[in-house]
């Protein structure tokens, strides 16, 4: 089985992807999607009630992925659970064989379809990463001993496109200090701004302490792009890109071409350790994208 840990240790260009868990109790959709990931990527994120909509839990999805021979990265947000639940779930994930976590603040529930829910946000992403590192080192947040510490890699997210750029640098510096082993970024369309952020990351020497996986979103259609621009928090999609997709004869092919061009440019950037593919509702494109972008190994 390809794993994130092995990929990070080997020093080769890392490829991760992500899957949105199904809206019901059947694992079939995850099993079906798994064939598009297995052998093509190093690990697959299982999102946690993404955009504030209830889905199969990320840890349960991870178990299905593990059974399918895929190394899962369990996403955990601070939106729905307090520190007791989060610490318990970190233990639970590790107990079933999860070896990587992506620790997030989480979209607010007003972005989802049950906005009347109570917002938790007991911790934030930075303090959650710190708490998980403490647990890995054998201590719960209150200092009590963890008898069998969870052996997990810790990930954080970064959005280099939200204002202010300086604040975005402060954020990644804090996540690295808190103990992040890897960072997955928001989908990159504005390469100029991403390069500016990376320059700051390198100036602070952060790329030597954390592995940065650059987010790439292959778009299937114009509608998919406008949906993400309008509905997904923190997603910035330039008008030129929508124009290019609109003008294309086969938008899906154009989407793959754009993603491949982006990956080629990302590989040139010093400090980028890999890519994180976000094939939203389009898992079957992953093998082709990996092949055409020259990421197959």
């Amino acid at each position: 089985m390809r794993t994130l840990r092995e990929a990070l240790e080997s020093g080769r260009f890392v490829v991760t992807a992500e899957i949105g868990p199904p809206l019901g109790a059947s694992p079939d959709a995850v099993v079906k999607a798994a064939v598009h990931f297995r052998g093509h990527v190093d690990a697959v994120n299982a999102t946690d009630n993404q955009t504030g909509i209830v889905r199969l839990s990320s840890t349960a999805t991870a178990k299905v992925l593990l059974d399918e021979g895929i190394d899962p990265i369990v996403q955990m947000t601070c939106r729905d659970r307090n520190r007791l639940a989060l610490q318990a779930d970190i233990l639970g994930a590790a107990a079933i064989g999860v070896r990587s976590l992506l620790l997030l603040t989480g979209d607010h529930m007003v972005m989802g379809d049950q906005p009347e829910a109570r917002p938790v946000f007991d911790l934030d992403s930075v303090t959650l990463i710190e708490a998980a590192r403490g647990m890995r080192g054998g201590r719960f947040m209150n200092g009590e001993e963890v008898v069998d510490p969870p052996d997990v890699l810790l990930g954080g997210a970064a959005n280099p496109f939200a204002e202010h750029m300086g604040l975005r640098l402060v954020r990644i510096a804090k996540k690295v200090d808190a103990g992040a082993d890897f960072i997955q970024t928001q989908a990159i369309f504005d390469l100029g701004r991403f390069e500016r952020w990376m320059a700051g990351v390198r100036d602070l020497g952060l790329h030597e302490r954390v592995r940065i996986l650059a987010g790439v979103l292959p778009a299937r259609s114009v509608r998919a792009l406008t949906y993400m621009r309008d509905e997904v928090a923190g997603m910035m999609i330039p008008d030129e890109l929508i124009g290019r997709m609109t003008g294309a004869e086969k938008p899906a092919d154009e989407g793959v071409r754009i993603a491949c061009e982006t990956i080629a440019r990302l590989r040139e950037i010093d400090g980028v350790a890999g890519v994180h593919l976000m094939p939203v509702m389009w898992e079957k494109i992953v093998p082709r994208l990996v092949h055409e972008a020259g990421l197959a190994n």
Partner: protein
Amino acid sequence: MTEHASTRSSQRLDDFLRARPSLGRRASSFILVLENVIKVPLFKCQRCGECVLSRTAFVCSQRCPKRLRNGACGGTRPGGFCEVYPERRCIWNAIYSRARALGRLAFLAQITPAHQWDLERTAAWLNLVRGRIERPHLGVSRNVSERDRKVAERAGREIR
């Protein structure tokens, strides 16, 4: 509970009030009234009981709908607006701008510990003299490390 380096007198006061919880609550309510008169109009204080205004360039971070103490989140909208209330400016962007203007960015580079939610709606001033919360960060020169300074200097070079 987080322990903060406290003087012997603050330790004695804390022990005294812990032994008399009802007196402690009444003292807190009384001081909270005074605190609110000053901090609510001045800082839109949210009465979290664990004041971090000195870390956040005196803009209350608890106005953030996610109550983030290490913001901003990744949901900030174009132009620096809030994910939850699109008509409002992201409070962490406001903190950042003010910290940059006041030369206090180094405090943003430090990790603010998770909030002690059991202190909500209690008097931060009393919590401070009881040694239950950290002391305010006053001068930048004394409270920040070389690393904090480096992050602040590099981040501060970015225009927007």
